[in-house]
């Protein structure tokens, strides 16, 4: 197949199927939201539910988030599933810092969103004390459908982002 140079000053409509006109945001966000690479920060029972979500029965890969990475440098979605203690918090913070931009965070389950039923000296009452969170999932533990819903909502959110705005804040 050979590419013919496009003559200057040809109206777009006359180019046929060779071109698609769109916005940069739309095409970048389309790519980003359909290839999320989750890093599971599983600390307690909720992580078991996440395992169900990514395995064949519920199959999160149908929604474009199947490539689970265990290195924060290769992931762009941090998924906290489980109870986080203050002692673990510096570790969580460091993992978040190690992830490259753009990155998103889902807090899964009662513990990660609010500390759950742990009203005590050692549990972080919601990981948003430590890192920013994009989507919260309710439940103790949330069902796999809820995980899928959260990923779906996150995809909607990514769809509204602007590349220029991210660039402006250095992200």
């Amino acid at each position: 197949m050979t590419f013919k140079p496009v003559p200057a000053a040809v109206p777009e409509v006359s180019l046929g199927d060779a071109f698609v006109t769109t916005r940069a945001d739309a095409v970048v966000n389309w790519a980003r939201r359909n290839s999320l690479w989750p890093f599971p920060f599983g600390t307690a029972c909720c992580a078991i539910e996440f395992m169900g979500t990514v395995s064949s029965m519920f199959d999160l890969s149908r929604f474009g988030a199947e490539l689970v990475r265990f290195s924060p440098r290769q992931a762009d979605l941090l998924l906290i599933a489980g109870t986080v203690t203050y002692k673990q918090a510096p570790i969580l913070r460091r993992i978040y810092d190690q992830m490259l931009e753009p990155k998103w965070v889902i807090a899964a389950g009662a513990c990660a969103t609010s500390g759950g039923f742990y009203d005590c000296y050692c549990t972080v009452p919601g990981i948003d004390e430590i890192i920013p969170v994009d989507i919260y999932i309710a439940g103790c533990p949330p069902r796999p459908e809820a995980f899928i819903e959260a990923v779906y909502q996150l995809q909607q959110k990514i769809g509204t982002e602007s590349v220029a705005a991210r660039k402006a804040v250095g992200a």
Partner: protein
Amino acid sequence: MSIVAAKPLEAGVPAERILAQLAERFAAVRDGRDRWGLTVTVARERLRDCLQWLRDEPSLHCDTLLDVAGVDYLAFPGHRGPRFAVVYLLKSTRFRHRLAVKVEVDEDDCALPSVHDLWKIADWAERETWDQYGIVFRGHPNLKRLLNHHEFSGHPLRKDYPCQKRQKLSVNDPMVDQLEARLRQRGYEVVERGEVSAGDPLTFREKSP
């Protein structure tokens, strides 16, 4: 593989006999609040002798220290006397009996003699009790926090600790000092040492002979 039958356990020692001996030797009294097992209270000055005797006396043979537990009676209904207590849980693997030895501890003089030299496990058990209740164990070789972070302040199982006080911590608590000592003892050496407080791992290798 041959299966060796366990040695049959010897008959238990009657509680009355243990109580009578402890009362005679260490002026220990039975704690009536314990309705399920046998708890005796001894004075702080007699504690070490009492525990050592329970361990060494062949007819009792309390060879295992199961736990060292702190108690804070701050809000306990009807409690009179010192605020804290420490309970040593003993078990005899030969006679199968269990025994709890309790000692009361004043808030103003919050200290007990350490028994880390009688039972090895007392080392960590006393560290935990210090960590959670702030009770000092005099003579302990390494009395530092066991469960809580080194930046943590206060003793969280005291009843007046505000449990919703949020203590954010800045670094990872590596807790590798004891692991390192143990591995060295077993013939390993450190090959690589990153910034430990930042969570970098230590890499060990077996020393070549």
